[in-house]
């Protein structure tokens, strides 16, 4: 029995919001705090690349719900919040070949888009984000500056970043800084 109620507060609720930087360059960046729905970490043995087709079973069917980031490692992501029972109920769908860990409390999604989005992200990561080598749907776990994040391309000019909750606001502030030369609209409300 809890002595006091735990209140869930979105990690970016109090983050910097508004328009910053260059007035209008035609290549403005938009930053969006995305819903803190569910973030499931799926882990399997190292020779588990064949599970790739199995993982979408526990997703919500939306595009880019399944994000591989290493051998036998995936994040499964969606906008809807899931109860512990709902998450536990997904385990049998993986036929005992992988385990699911709820990371909904621990990782935050940030959307970033605009014509100059590759240039902005290239200031922070060494991953080649050119569309030819990093097509829509591709994910990469990397460093943005000194902050670890999973980058996923969701469109021709849009990416999603998955970052540890405690680093979300730092990354948010850094992304605003990195976008100033193009102008940036930051939407922290969800």
């Amino acid at each position, binding site marked *: 029995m809890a002595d006091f109620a735990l209140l869930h507060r979105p990690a970016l609720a109090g983050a910097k919001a508004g328009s910053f930087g260059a007035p209008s360059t035609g290549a403005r960046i938009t930053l969006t705090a995305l819903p803190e729905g569910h973030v499931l970490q799926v882990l399997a043995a*190292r020779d588990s690349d064949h599970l790739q087709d199995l993982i979408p079973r526990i997703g919500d069917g939306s595009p880019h719900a399944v994000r591989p*980031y*290493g*051998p036998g490692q995936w994040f499964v992501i969606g906008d809807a919040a899931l109860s512990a029972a709902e998450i536990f109920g997904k385990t049998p769908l993986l036929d005992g070949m992988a385990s699911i860990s709820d990371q909904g409390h621990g990782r935050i999604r940030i959307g970033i888009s605009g014509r100059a989005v590759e240039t902005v992200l290239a200031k922070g990561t*060494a*991953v080649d984000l050119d569309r030819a080598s990093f097509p829509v749907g591709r994910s990469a776990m*990397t*460093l943005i500056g000194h902050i670890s994040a999973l980058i996923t391309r969701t469109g021709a000019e849009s990416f999603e970043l998955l970052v540890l909750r405690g680093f979300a606001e730092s990354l948010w502030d850094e992304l605003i800084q990195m976008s100033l030369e193009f102008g940036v609209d930051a939407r922290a409300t969800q």
Partner: protein
Amino acid sequence: MASLIACPHCGPRPKEEFTVRGDAGITRPAPDAGEDAWHAYVYLRDNPRGRHKEHWHHTSGCRRWLVVERDTMTHTIHAVSDASAEGATA
């Protein structure tokens, strides 16, 4: 120190994404191997000039342990492989 490591899982990444554990060539002694063997295993390391194999952890990427073979003098990277591919468990 070499600056770009070609992770077999993630592609070329800067060294800042990795944690270096050290010499990949040493073998863990048996529990009863004696004090000298354990002292050597824990504390004593060669400081080679030239080709050297090390365990590198791709901490900020795929989180796999890798074996990186590099030249300590020229910084050339000769080979990078997943540590489990060699059966290395030390």
